[in-house]
């Protein structure tokens, strides 16, 4: 349970961090909050040759307002986003989902962008980013590009990020009028990884449901406003379309059951919250 050897680099600027990333490529890992990376190092599931600690780069902590939403930079702690003034009003889905991320002790260190880059299939933040149509802002020494969440997550803990790119920030669009948001999660204990998590976004004529913890990555569907048997049919189809995992925590059948039951309840709650 001790990490293998690696070099440690603590750049002062984002340009320096990008230089190291470009030079070291896939042998480098970015260290932000470390709440997923450090256990992976300890268990030697990850054996990078160099760690790039970005937490002391100026300007990578402060959340700012951007076009259409808030921009959360690479080193912003989860606790800082959760404590952002007015979050319940501007980003009700984040306000509902973030208390489910780990524990207060891990949210105090863990970063928002780190969770997105890590792309765990049961991560609440990945689910939320996909559900609200957010974007991941990637930067290398030469290029900058913004990738929609739906294109960023490509597989089990796999993303569209290139080896020389840093997740410089993520953008969460602000809640729009006439839209209702709801979140639900099922786990054995609060703070455990989600067995199933569901986010629903409801508008007057449409509903979007996003499911985490079931397939290799969060998956979303957009439907017209369904109710009753039509909604149950749609959820059942979704449950079977997902490649539900069997693991020590739950079998695939339980996960499909939860997609159906939690899906319906969460959608109904989102509809009732349309503001």
């Amino acid at each position: 349970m001790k990490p293998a050897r690696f070099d440690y680099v603590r750049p002062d600027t984002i340009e320096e961090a990008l230089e190291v990333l470009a030079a070291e490529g896939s042998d480098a890992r970015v260290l932000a909050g470390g709440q997923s990376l450090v256990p992976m190092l300890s268990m030697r599931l990850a054996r990078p040759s160099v760690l790039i600690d970005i937490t002391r780069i100026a300007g990578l902590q402060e959340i700012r307002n951007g076009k259409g939403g808030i921009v959360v930079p690479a080193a912003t702690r989860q606790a800082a986003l959760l404590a952002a003034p007015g979050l319940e009003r501007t980003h009700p889905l984040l306000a509902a989902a973030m208390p489910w991320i780990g524990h207060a002790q891990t949210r105090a260190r863990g970063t928002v962008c780190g969770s997105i880059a890590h792309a765990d299939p049961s991560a609440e933040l990945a689910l939320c980013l996909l559900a609200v149509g957010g974007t991941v802002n990637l930067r290398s020494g030469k290029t900058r590009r913004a990738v929609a969440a739906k294109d960023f997550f490509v597989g089990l803990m796999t993303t569209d990020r290139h080896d020389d790119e840093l997740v410089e920030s993520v953008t969460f669009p602000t809640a729009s009028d006439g839209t209702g948001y709801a979140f639900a999660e099922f786990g054995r204990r609060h703070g455990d990884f989600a067995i199933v998590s569901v986010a629903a976004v409801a508008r007057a004529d449409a509903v979007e449901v996003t499911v985490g913890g079931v397939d290799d990555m969060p998956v979303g569907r957009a439907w017209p406003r369904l109710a009753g048997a039509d909604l149950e049919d749609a959820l059942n189809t979704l449950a079977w379309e997902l490649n539900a995992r069997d693991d020590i925590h739950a079998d695939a059948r339980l996960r499909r059951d939860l997609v159906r039951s939690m899906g319906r309840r969460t959608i109904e709650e989102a509809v009732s919250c349309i503001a």
Partner: protein
Amino acid sequence: MHRVNASHKATIRFTLNGRQVEGSAEPRMLLTDFLRHECGATGTHVGCEHGVCGACTVRIDGGMARACLMLAVQVEGTAVETVEGLSPEPGRLSVLQDAFRRHHALQCGFCTAGILMSLDTLLKKEPHADETRIRDVLGGHLCRCTGYQPIVTATVEAAEILRSDNGDV
């Protein structure tokens, strides 16, 4: 840019419970091992060593942190507080520690150091934390002996005492 090669030891300067200290560590050394083996601060316990049990929880620049999920090199220049720093003077327990003793909120005591650091931080930041909030923060810890009720009872009482006394935590 600060760089430490894998097999070299970096000198790390930080404050530990208010005292300026210095130690050396390879980049891969976890903060838990650094505190215990380099600094001799063995009050911080090592349980699961992968961030689940909470036994190694310390305070860094005022915020809770799992010491096993941090590298020693990351605390350079920070203020680290451990269970050794809770007691206001030798032979005297803090209000929270004393409540733990009165309510038998520890049995073997292995998990206690981390729990005290989390709950002490909570009561400092949120003096009006209620039982629900206390349980929420305690949720980040595992205790295998006492059950959690005596810990909750002790913390609720400590919070009341601290609010009425306005004393030191």
